């Protein structure tokens, strides 16, 4: 995951080309083995157990290792050793940059300093991105001080689910507070109950179509009701997981039927609203989220 962020920075600075960036990402994806596969190959779990945990991951917003430990299939120590086997993503990416001749070690260190400075990252932020752990990375992109904890939780959950169901090479952008948002199209859903939430997904056509095609398991070529329906279904599943987590704290939320806007629409609020960019295959998907403020939608 470190390579996704640092690699993009290098591409933007023209230290590497777009093709070189994609090649590096593919290499990293292929060397990163899934925890379940590692556990089975090392005879720590059976294939059936790994499959059961994979299935549970689909409906619980929890890590593979945590579920496996709860089920008694792995110990904490085994999870730690498996994580070590997966490899240090930061080191793997640096090694790939050097092995391909794109940068020397000195060059990597110089660019890392530039990355930290230009992206205004603290040492802790950089460590978080180097960790490759999305739970550590997501807060780096929620620096806006007014973001309430409920929304931070939602953004982090969405990032995990985009990673899981749509793009394992997801890259997040910085969350911004806004009062209005205009989109040429949008897939959306509201939740109501102990608090009210509006969530919408829009963005670059390529990003929306890719999300729709992967989640909807068919190729969509146009942003229309059908492709937005697939994106809405992703939002629905995402919201279901969020509502499920909230219900564990006895907070009840009801999901309303998703709404698709196939023409330009504008949402504005009298309170805070946030927009978060999620880059899938380098195209921007934008999530708009509004909590407990009165919102108005015009088409």
């Amino acid at each position, binding site marked *: 995951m470190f390579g996704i962020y640092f690699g993009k920075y290098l591409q933007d600075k023209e230290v590497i080309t777009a093709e070189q960036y994609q090649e590096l990402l593919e290499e990293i994806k292929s060397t990163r083995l899934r925890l379940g596969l590692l556990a089975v190959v090392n005879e720590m779990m059976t294939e059936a157990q790994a499959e059961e945990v994979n*299935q549970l991951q689909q409906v619980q917003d929890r890590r593979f290792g945590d579920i496996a430990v709860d089920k008694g299939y792995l110990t904490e120590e085994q999870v730690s050793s498996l994580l070590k086997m997966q490899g240090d993503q930061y080191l793997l990416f640096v090694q790939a940059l050097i092995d391909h001749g794109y940068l020397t070690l000195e060059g990597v260190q110089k660019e890392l300093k530039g990355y930290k400075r230009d992206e205004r990252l603290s040492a802790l932020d950089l460590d978080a991105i180097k960790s490759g752990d999305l739970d550590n990375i997501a807060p780096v992109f929620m620096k806006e001080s007014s973001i309430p904890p409920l929304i931070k939780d939602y953004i982090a959950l969405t990032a995990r689910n985009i990673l899981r169901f749509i793009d394992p090479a997801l890259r997040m952008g910085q969350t911004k507070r806004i009062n209005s948002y205009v989109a040429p199209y949008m897939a959306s859903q509201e939740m109501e109950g102990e608090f009210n939430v509006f969530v919408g997904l829009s963005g670059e056509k390529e990003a929306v179509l890719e999300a729709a095609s992967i989640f909807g398991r068919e190729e969509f070529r146009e942003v229309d009701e059908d492709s937005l329906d697939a994106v809405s279904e992703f939002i629905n599943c995402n919201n279901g997981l969020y509502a499920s987590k909230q219900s564990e704290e006895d907070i009840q939320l009801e999901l309303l039927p998703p709404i698709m806007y196939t023409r330009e629409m504008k949402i504005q609020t009298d309170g805070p609203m946030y927009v978060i960019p999620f880059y899938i295959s380098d195209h921007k998907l934008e999530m708009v989220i509004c909590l407990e403020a009165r919102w108005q939608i015009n088409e």
Partner: protein
Amino acid sequence: MANFLIVDDSRTSRKILKGILEGAGFTVVGEATNGQEAYDKYVELQPDVVTMDITMPVLDGIGGLKKIKEAFPESKVVMVTAAGQKNKMLEAVQNGADEFIPKPFDAEQLVETLKKVMGA
């Protein structure tokens, strides 16, 4: 093999579910997009099993479940839920739901659940 009625307002969901059911050798005899349509189609088609999404416009899945079960107590209705929402699941159980299928769909688990319902 069993005949299914698929009820979901999402075309994507209906398509994926239909693909899984037909891949497992079942027959999908009809589709509906809300609870009222589900009831109307049930009367017309008399399927063996209904898969019913919970969150739908016009009449939601709980409403559709109630209507079908009141008129056809022997019907088999499996609720489809986006992750576990305890209150909705409880309401569905109280109104006679036979089983639950979570979204996103897992083909193997889904088919196993439906076979259990058909065998019951």
